[in-house]
C-alpha cells in the first residue's frame, strides 16, 4: 500500500499562504510618504505615551535604548498591494512600554514627527503584536523608512505602522487618523482586505 508520507509530516507554510488577498510579493522596500522625511536627531527625540486623564510618560532616546529589545521577523503588507516577507526588525515591544501605564482606554492614536497620525484599537498594540522599531535588517532604521523609530504593527496594513513615531495617545473613544479620515478603513486587516471604508 502506498503512503504519501509528506502529508503526515506537515510542511512549512508556503509563500502563497502568507500572501493576503490582492497582494503581490516584492523584494524591494518601497518608500511611501505623506510628507517630507523627518530627520530627528537622537538628542531631540522623545517618545511619549499620554493617557486619557492627561498623565504623560516619556522616554528619551537613551531611555528607549535601555529598555529590553526584541528582534522579530515578520511579513508586512502595504495597502497599495505590495507585501514583503521575512523582514527583520529590532525594537521595544509595546507591552514593555505600556507595562506601567494605567489606562481604561480602548483606542490609541499614534502621532509622528511631521504630523502624521493613525488610530488603532489598544488591544492590537499589546500581547506581542506591536513594537517601536529602531533597527531594520541588522542596521539602524533609516529615515526614509521611519527612523530613528517607527511603530511596527505587522498584522495590519502598513499605514498603521507610523513612521517617525513620537507619541501614543490613549483614548476612550475611537477617532480617525490621517488616512482613516479620508476613505481608508478604520482597522485595516490585510487578511480581510480592509483597504477602504465599507470593506
Amino acid at each position: 500500500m502506498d503512503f504519501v508520507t509528506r502529508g503526515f509530516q506537515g510542511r512549512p507554510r508556503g509563500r502563497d499562504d502568507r500572501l493576503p488577498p490582492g497582494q503581490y510579493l516584492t523584494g524591494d522596500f518601497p518608500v511611501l510618504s505623506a510628507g517630507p522625511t523627518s530627520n530627528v536627531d537622537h538628542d531631540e527625540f522623545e517618545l511619549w505615551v499620554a493617557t486619557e486623564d492627561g498623565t504623560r510618560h516619556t522616554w528619551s532616546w537613551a531611555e528607549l535604548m535601555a529598555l529590553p529589545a526584541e528582534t522579530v521577523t515578520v511579513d508586512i503588507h502595504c495597502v497599495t498591494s505590495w507585501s514583503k516577507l521575512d523582514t527583520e526588525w529590532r525594537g521595544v515591544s509595546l507591552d514593555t512600554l505600556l507595562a506601567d501605564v494605567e489606562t481604561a482606554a480602548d483606542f490609541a492614536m499614534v502621532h509622528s514627527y511631521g504630523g502624521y497620525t493613525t488610530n488603532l484599537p489598544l488591544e492590537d498594540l499589546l500581547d506581542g503584536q506591536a513594537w517601536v522599531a529602531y533597527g531594520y535588517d541588522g542596521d539602524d532604521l533609516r529615515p526614509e523608512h521611519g527612523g530613528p523609530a517607527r511603530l511596527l504593527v505587522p498584522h495590519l496594513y502598513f499605514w498603521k505602522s507610523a513612521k517617525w513615531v513620537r507619541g501614543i495617545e490613549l483614548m476612550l473613544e475611537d477617532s480617525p487618523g490621517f488616512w482613516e479620515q479620508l476613505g481608508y478603513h478604520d482597522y485595516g486587516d490585510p487578511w480581510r482586505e480592509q483597504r477602504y471604508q465599507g470593506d
Partner: protein
Amino acid sequence: MTIPDGPGPTAAYDGNLMAGPLSELFALDVTVAVVRCRGCGADAEVATLRVYGPEPGLVGRCPGCDDVLVRVVRTPDAVWLDLGGVTSLQVPAPKR
C-alpha cells in the same frame, strides 16, 4: 436675510444647491486656483504645492510652511477631498 448660527434645521437649502457652482469649479483647471494656507496665511497656486503620493493618496503641502493644505484619495468608488488646511480657494472666472 439672517444667517443662523451654526448648522441646524433652519437652513433654507441643502447641498444640492451647491452642485452647480461646484461642477463649474471642478470643471476648471484647478491647478491655477490660489489657496490660502490656514497655518501661515501664505497664498499659493495649487500647481506650486509640494505634493506627496500618489499612493495611498495625494497630499499637497504649503510651499511656505509645509502644512497639509489639500488631500485627495481615490477609492474604487469615491473621491475623497480634504481642504481643511486652506482658508480659501480662489479660482479665476469670467468677468460678469
